[in-house]
């Protein structure tokens, strides 16, 4: 068994191609032959269709998505490392921003940037010996649901972040519930995924999104569920979510630039609307 594991992510899109661009070739075959020729080829286009259906099913309105973006940009103003530090977002700026693909405005979409992030995982015994305050992993799960990967948008349960079967296992493993979570980092490829992730982790009823998703509920230090407190993928830095894990650890250590007081339980929901998905919960020494 490894004694020390380094988890890292490094991105160099400038040299190796941007994620959000479609394929350039004459022909296409396989599953994507049934989508790309219709102009459905980017991540935003893959996910907007799910979010649109969820919003339809539950009467979710655009300001609910906007609140998620406003919270991220709010937190980024406290974070000198954030790409969007010094570039605040207002409701007006969001509303007037161009559509990328409805229901996503520009500010509903993650950044594309270069960068790197890493975490070091060791046993609790070993962690006690290092100079940084330890942060404990209370649970981590990965999984999916029935035919979640069905091709050409045919997953039977379609309008979902794909956490319905996964979230209960996480809470079970960590021995906590939604009410115990002090602060949340929730992967924003697009705001709509955050919304469905938060619903599926039990923080909000699907039909209660318009009331729950307001900026004041989502910001540190006093919000009901402070979310993406570094600025996250939308406004800090898009490290494919690893930056969110690091921010979750900062919250436990008391080292965030948008610190929530007395954090013991700090949660990360990783990339939604794909399959499989994963999520984890970190805790302070008091949770052991």
């Amino acid at each position, binding site marked *: 068994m490894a004694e020390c594991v380094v988890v890292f992510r490094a991105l160099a899109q400038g040299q190796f191609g941007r994620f959000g661009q479609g*394929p350039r070739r004459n022909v296409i075959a396989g599953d994507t032959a049934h989508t790309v*020729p219709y102009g459905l080829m980017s991540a935003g286009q893959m996910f907007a269709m799910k979010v649109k259906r969820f919003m339809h099913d539950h009467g979710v309105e655009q300001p609910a998505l906007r609140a998620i973006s406003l919270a991220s940009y709010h937190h980024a103003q406290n974070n000198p490392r954030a790409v969007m530090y010094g570039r605040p977002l207002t409701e007006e700026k969001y509303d007037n921003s161009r559509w990328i693909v*409805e229901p996503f405005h520009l500010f509903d979409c993650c950044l594309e940037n270069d960068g790197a992030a890493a975490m070091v995982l060791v046993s609790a015994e070993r962690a006690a010996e290092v100079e940084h305050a330890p942060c404990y992993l209370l649970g981590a799960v990965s999984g999916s649901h029935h035919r979640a990967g069905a091709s050409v948008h*045919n997953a039977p349960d379609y309008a979902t972040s794909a956490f319905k079967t996964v979230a209960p296992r996480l809470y079970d493993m960590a021995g906590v519930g939604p009410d115990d979570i002090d602060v949340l980092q929730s992967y924003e490829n697009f705001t709509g995924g955050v919304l469905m992730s938060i619903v599926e982790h039990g923080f909000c009823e699907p039909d209660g999104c318009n009331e729950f998703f307001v900026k004041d509920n989502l910001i540190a230090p006093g919000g009901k569920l402070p979310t993406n407190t570094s600025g996250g993928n939308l406004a800090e830095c898009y490290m494919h979510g690893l930056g969110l894990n690091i921010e979750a650890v900062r919250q436990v250590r008391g080292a965030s630039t948008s610190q929530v007081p007395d954090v013991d339980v700090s949660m990360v929901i990783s990339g939604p609307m794909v399959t499989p998905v994963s999520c984890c919960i970190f805790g302070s020494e008091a949770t052991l």
Partner: protein
Amino acid sequence: MSYLHPGLPKPVPAPDGLDAPFWEAAREGVLKLQRCKACGQWQWGPEWICHNCFSDDLEFVEVEPRGRIYSYERVWHPVHPALKEQGPYLIVLVEFPDHDNARIVGNLLGDPEQEVAIGAPVRAVFEHHPDDEPPHTLVHWTVE
């Protein structure tokens, strides 16, 4: 909207032939979906086994080219050079209530800024390119 501007990748049957009957039928103006001969389950996209009973005895069967809008999106930002001058366009996910709610992706024709209603009935429109290299047909939708 009329059709998308030319220049996007053109569909060809998968090298293993899995979806060839679909594309061949489309070139004849016929819509075919996959059905399990063992249990009668309809499915899409095409797969080698039935997701319901795991039989590998599947066929492509002609269906009435009508469905209803399950979801949609209006795309504004072009992510491909061919779409730079396109302006907004609509992508619909069409479901077939009579065929186990199998779904297919296409464009919704008409005004790209039209109000789109989830649940609205639509019928297929075949965009043929017999002289293109390779020849192919796309399957679009229009509100009934």
